[in-house]
Structures are given as C-alpha cells and as structure tokens.
C-alpha cells in the first residue's frame, strides 16, 4: 500500500469529517437534511460521466451536484420549500441516470461501486488540495455567517427584518453542502453521504446545552466516527462508508438510551 495515499486519505477523511459535520448542523437546523442525500445521488451522474469520457470523476461529481443544487434551489424558490417530491425527483433521477450511463460501458459499471459505497484509498495530491480548499471555504463562510444562519432557522421573519439576506445565506450553504457532498461520495459513497453529514449533528442535539455546544459536539462526534471507521476499514477490510456511518448510528443509539436510563435513574 502506498503510504502517501494512506496519509492523504486519512487527512482528507478528517477534513471531510469536520466540514461535513459543520455543514450537517446547518442543514439539519434549516430542515434540509434530506438535501445532502439528493445531491449525493445526483452527483453520481457526473462521476459516471467522468469515467465514461475519461475526465476527472471528482470534478464531474462536483459539477453534477452543483447542477442538482441549482435545480433544487430553483424549484424551492418556486414553491417556497424543499418538497419531498423535488428531493425524490433529484435523488432518483440522478441515481437512475448514473446507472444507465454506467451500464453502457463495463469499466464505468465496475468503478460505480466505488462511488456508491466509497473507498478510503481514492486520494491523490490533487484531491487533498481540493479538500483543503473546500475545508477553508466552509470554515470561512461559517465563521462569518453561522449566527445569521442560526437566526434564520429560529426566527426567519425577525432575521429578515434585521436585514439578513435569506437567499444569499441559503444559496451559499447549499453550494458548500454540494461541494462537501461531492467529496463525501468519494470516501463514504453516495448512498451514505447524507447520513455522514447529518448523524454527527443528530448526536450533537442529544448532547449539547447550547448552539455553540451543538457545533462542538457535532465536530467531535464527526471526527470520532471518521477515525473509528477508518481503523475498522484498515484492520477488518470493511467498506469505509458503511463502518463510519454504522459507528455513528451506534453512538446515537448509545447516547439516546443512555439519556433515557439517566432520566429513569433520576
């Protein structure tokens, strides 16, 4: 195994865990948690096209996810909400289109498995650079706008009256989510990226006593999930996405039952 690849993959996984959990928190509180799933499925189209025509499947995935994001945003603007129907349309539409493209050529079909289920050993230097850039993008945006997004989630009318631009904030959040998702599918796979983003936030909600606490717990849990998942992957040769997400689900169950038992104890 090439040590550089392992190192890069680990680093990317950690960066992804942090930015994924951060974006996940805001997707969850804005009630967009299914958005990540829909975008992940749609970005498969780009990944498949990339393999089919021989260009970078990562860039193909990013581009397709962005297209999906823009379509969803346009539909949402028309109907004033992400409806189940819109999300299902993008999700199923993307997956089926990707499968059709893949079935046209054997090599695409073979590599599609990696995008459906993820692979921790996908990373070269180019991917690492991209991961660092998106990481900084997420960090910068949230450092300056996380409070605006919080207020938009709790008191949208009040936020608007304070001059907070709804469209601007939501659009950037969706763009960032899109880019994080496109990376996520490389490591975790399209089927589980949504859970990878949202699970840390879900667990954070159970543990935190403030919004700042929620962000802290989500990132901590996200990192723990990624590290634990990667260890299982290396030593037991299991698929990374499945082990990372399964670790998260296990933590969630433990936390929720722990809280129930604690309440009964009181």
């Amino acid at each position, binding site marked *: 195994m090439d040590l550089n690849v392992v190192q890069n993959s680990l680093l990317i996984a950690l960066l992804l865990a942090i930015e994924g959990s951060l974006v996940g928190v805001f997707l*969850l*509180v804005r009630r967009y948690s299914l958005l990540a799933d829909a975008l992940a499925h749609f970005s498969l189209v780009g990944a498949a096209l990339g393999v089919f025509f021989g260009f970078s499947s990562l860039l193909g995935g990013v581009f397709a996810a962005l297209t999906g994001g823009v379509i969803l945003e346009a539909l949402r603007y028309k109907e004033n909400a992400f409806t189940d129907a819109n999300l299902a349309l993008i999700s199923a539409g993307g997956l089926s289109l990707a499968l059709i493209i893949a079935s046209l050529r054997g090599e695409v079909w073979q590599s599609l498995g990696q995008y459906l289920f993820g692979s921790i050993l996908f990373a070269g230097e180019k991917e690492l650079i991209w991961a660092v850039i998106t990481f900084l993008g997420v960090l910068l945006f949230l*450092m*300056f*706008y996380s*409070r*605006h997004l*919080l*207020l938009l*989630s*709790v*008191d949208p*009318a*009040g*936020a*608007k*009256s*304070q*001059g*907070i*631009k709804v469209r601007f904030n939501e659009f950037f959040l969706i763009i960032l989510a899109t880019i994080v998702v496109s990376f996520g599918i490389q490591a975790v796979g399209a089927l589980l990226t949504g859970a990878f983003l949202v699970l840390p936030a879900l667990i954070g*909600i159970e543990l*935190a*006593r*403030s*919004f*700042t*606490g*929620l962000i802290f717990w989500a990132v901590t849990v996200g990192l723990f999930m990624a590290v634990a998942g990667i260890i299982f992957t290396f030593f037991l040769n299991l698929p990374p996405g499945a082990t990372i997400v399964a670790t998260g689900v296990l933590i969630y169950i433990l936390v929720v039952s722990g809280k129930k038992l604690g309440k009964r104890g009181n």
Partner: protein
Amino acid sequence: MGLIVKNLSVTYGGEPVLEDINFSLKEGDFLLVLGKNGAGKSTLLKAIVGEIPYSGMIKTFNHKIGYVAQKIPGTIRFPVTVEELVLAGTLKGKPKLSYSKEDREVAVEALKATNLLNKRKKLLGNLSGGELRRAFIARALAGKADLLLLDEPTSGLDQMSREELYQVLNTFFREDTIILMVTHDPKEIKILGNKVLHIDKKALYFGDKDGYLAGEERELGFECCPE
C-alpha cells in the same frame, strides 16, 4: 421624525388586502392595530418592515425597526439558548466574526427589559409560551429598536404570561419610542397603548384611544355587523 404611512395599498394575487391607509405617529405613540381576521393587520406590519411589496409611501426615518411576527415556532428541536437568540438580534446583513462587548451589553439590557436575565442560559425549547414570546421580543430589542412592531404578541398566552408581557411593554415604552401592536383582544385596548387604528382593509378609525373608547359602541357595532 416618527412614522408616516401615506396611501398605503397592498394586493395579494389581484385581491386588495389594504386600501389607501393613511396615518402618522410620533415618538411616544403606542398604537394598537385592531380589526377582525383577514382585515389586513399583519399585512400592515409586514409592509412597514418591507417584507412585502406595496404601493404608497411608508417613511420610518432613522428609526431602528424591531419586528416580532405572529407566527413563532412552537417547538425548537435543536439546542439554542435564550442568550444566543438575543445576541443574534444585534446582527445586521453584514458578516460577523464575533459579538462585540457592546453587542453583549445591549443583549443584557434586552434580557433585563424582558425579565429573562436569569433564564439566559435556558434552551428555547424548554421555555414556556410566554417566556418564548418575550425571548423573541428581546431579540427585536437587541437591535436597539425604537420602532417596535408586534403582531399579536399575546395570542396563545395564559393570563399570567399576558400580564408579564404587558409589564415588559409598559417598561420599554418611552417618550422616544414608537410601538405598533396588533391585537384582537378588546381587553388589551384598556390596558395598553394611547392610539388606535381600526382597519378592515380600509382605515375605519385612527386617533386617540380615548376617542375610540368614547365611541366604542358605534365602532364595535361596525365590527359585529358588517354590511
């Protein structure tokens, strides 16, 4: 200065919701906006905030508007403390890296004014209905509002929570502030405010509260028996 509303009309999908509303307020005015359901009370506030398009003129001069909508979320399923919400009231459209010392001081004042200082670390999801309302009003006050727009702030509250809220409003209300409050509780006319605007798409009455109360029977007659 003050607030001037001139020839204000609003239509939703071709239907008129507000027609030719005219009134003006000066500092020290506390206006109660009355009218039955669908009379356009909330629409009037939304137009002043700039949330909806309208024709006519609304001038708010240099006033800082604090707006609390009628619909506030019943349950907030993620952890946000009262303090975090109220601090967010200091935000403008601009990006913000961290809250300044002044922001924190204004937030503490807003928490004091709404009687929530000792509950600032509590989660919004654990507040009573009345406390949640007051937290949202504190959020509006934290923007250093001196023109406060409240849309039925007492709806759904029990008597004790109402009285606490009346106290908060009467404390906030000063010579240099303007309050517009939508209500459909006739009892509140006697407790709060000094001016009345009664609308049913058009303005039926605008003037001093005392004048409105003196002609109460005529006005209520209008409300109870349209056509």
